[in-house]
């Protein structure tokens, strides 16, 4: 009995402490409905599942979703369980864009032939960076070229995390993974630069493409809504911090998302009907070391390599700013 009494007193103390902390206000205009339920098997601190949650909140219930094999598929659908409260299909790794193309074509034909009610339905395709920038690249290109009205979302955690952190073409230069370890021959770990997917998407001439990050959830939701409205394909590339794969503390995903954007490593921008526009322009970029600090995957970088990366990031940022400003003047 004595121990029970003391337990109660501990709880009371804790509660008193919590009350002193800043209360987080409910977000304005933030949809309360959930379309991916809790209880899924994502790692602690996963920002990717957060991105999925925000994307679906923005679209709402009238959606059909095709998902590639990967983290988000594995965590959400161990038969007979499902986390999805929207119609969802998974076929394979490299074909989310093609499966979505089929769904779009099928629903379009059925609506035209009056076999199903004429209801506005958003088709959403989603894959990780592996399923999008590597193995699913061709299917995605086909989907964009053919002009299907589909939102394709790449949730990019910068490696094959589901299979145990192997490098992809979206892994940034200097990051170590299990297949791009740092060593005498390959001092940087990943020795290649991240594939520029938004530029590739824009080169397809699709009406809308953008980058986003769940740290900036308002920006993310706004972009999804824009994508929903355009008549044709759209491509949204979302940086999704993976504490497990990046080797950062579990509670730091949001913070690292902010740093990625504010260092210029992952700028927030969009290309709407060919017009490039920066969505967040810090007065001055933070040095990339601030972003690298605390990330296990960058721990091996020396000053020379860091300086090399900094130069490249700065150059890329300047080019992006220039492009966006040129488009603004037009």
């Amino acid at each position, binding site marked *: 009995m004595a121990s029970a009494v003391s337990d109660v007193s501990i709880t009371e103390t804790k509660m008193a402490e919590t009350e002193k902390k800043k209360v987080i206000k409910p977000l304005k205009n933030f949809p309360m409905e959930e379309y991916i339920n809790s209880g899924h098997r994502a790692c602690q601190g996963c920002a990717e599942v957060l991105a999925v949650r925000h994307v679906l909140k923005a679209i709402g219930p009238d959606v059909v979703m095709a998902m590639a094999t990967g983290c988000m598929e594995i965590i959400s659908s*161990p038969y007979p*369980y499902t986390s999805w409260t929207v119609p*969802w299909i998974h076929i*394979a790794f490299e*074909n989310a864009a093609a499966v979505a*193309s*089929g769904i779009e074509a*099928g629903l379009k*034909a059925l609506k035209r032939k009056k076999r199903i009610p004429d209801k506005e339905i958003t088709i959403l395709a989603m894959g990780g960076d592996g399923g999008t920038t590597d193995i699913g690249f061709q299917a995605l290109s*086909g989907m964009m070229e053919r002009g299907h009205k589909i939102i394709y979302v790449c949730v990019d955690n910068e490696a094959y995390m589901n299979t145990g952190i192997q490098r992809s073409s979206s892994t940034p230069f200097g990051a170590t993974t299990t297949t791009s370890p740092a060593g005498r021959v390959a001092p940087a770990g990943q020795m290649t630069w991240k594939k520029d997917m938004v530029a590739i998407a824009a080169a397809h001439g699709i009406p809308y493409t953008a980058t986003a990050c769940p740290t900036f959830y308002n920006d993310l939701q706004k972009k999804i809504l824009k994508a929903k409205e355009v008549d044709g394909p759209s491509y949204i590339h979302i940086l999704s911090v993976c504490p497990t794969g990046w080797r950062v503390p579990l509670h730091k995903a949001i913070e690292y998302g902010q740093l990625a954007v504010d260092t210029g490593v992952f700028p927030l921008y969009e290309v709407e009907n060919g017009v490039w526009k920066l969505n967040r322009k810090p007065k001055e970029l933070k040095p990339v070391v601030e972003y690298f600090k605390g990330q296990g995957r960058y721990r091996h970088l020396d000053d020379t390599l860091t300086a090399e990366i900094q130069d490249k990031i700065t150059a890329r940022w300047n080019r992006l700013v220039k492009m966006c400003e040129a488009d603004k003047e037009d």
Partner: protein
Amino acid sequence: MGQKVGIEVSIAAADAVGLCDVDVVAAYPITPQTHVVEHLAELCASGHLDAEFVPVESEHSAMSVCCGSAAAGARTFTATSAQGLALMAEIVYIASSMRLPMVMFLANRALSAPLSIWNDHSDTMMVRDCGWVQVFCQNGQEVYDSIFHAFKVSEDKRVSLPVMINVDGFALTHVIEPIEFWTKEMVKQYLPPFQPIHTLHPDKVVTMGAFGMPEIYTEAKKALDVALWNSGPVVVEAWNEMAKLTGRQYLPVEKYRTEEAETLILAMGSICETASLAVDEMRESGRKIGMINLRLWRPLPTEELIKALAGARDVIVLDRALTPGGANSPLTSEIRTLMYAEPNRPNIYCMVAGLGGRDVTPNDIKVMVDTALADKHTGHYIYGVRG
């Protein structure tokens, strides 16, 4: 009754697909499948067919689009050949395991290497275990009729499985044959509208394609096996129904001059018509020989096959695919396994012939029969190797 016209088999098949009022066609061009999809593209472009024609960037995407559209509840068709089937093979297995109804026209062609655009059955044998209903066609009329039959079987709620129609490349796809056409009324009478069990639609939320832990995977595969076996009676039922409508009766196992036959030739596809000519000639010279045409490859019509083969002394299987380094070639292995437990089983010989478009004449078939009966090889015998 419909009208009989001389027409290229591929064009007729595409017309049949059009008559079925298909909703989505997704295909990637590959010889000798092209004429089918070209004609479908024309039908869509001219407005004769109200369907979405999705000109995909690969066969892998063709099958993926088909999975998406079938899951959305649309009547779905694709066509391919050899390398195309190889590329889509991953998704071919998924379509059946997820019980997605669709029809595939497979213009049978040899697999590379060396690259060959010509006919054999190595492509279809590569996906033998894919869990689809698989039928073979002997002539153009069969190909045409098979389209209606395939949609009916595939979309039947008791089946809900994809159906593959095997059509010998060039030997059938590119020949002009007299074909009796169906009328729209006949199709309407025969083929009910597609009413899928589950579809992807926000009004009724479903999750499709969940992953299977070890405790469920075996059960899922067992379910597919049961579903495929159960499709057998539906396949036959749909053929019987067609017979009432067209007067043409198809059977899973067809016999040709098998009365009192000591020797039987067993084959699938267009080679059967050639074999029947050889049988005629050999019968004329007094030999007791007949032919078995196996039309339904999956699910295998085991009872009918056993009944058809049990009385014979020798069975010569004409295999149009090779199993390098294996016990025997695919069709022969299947027949041997089936007959193993039969007390009065015949001798079963394998003749691999017609690979990569090598012509097989009635005379070749006579030579193969004689060779098999004289040599009594237990393994596969590759007929006609030069040098």
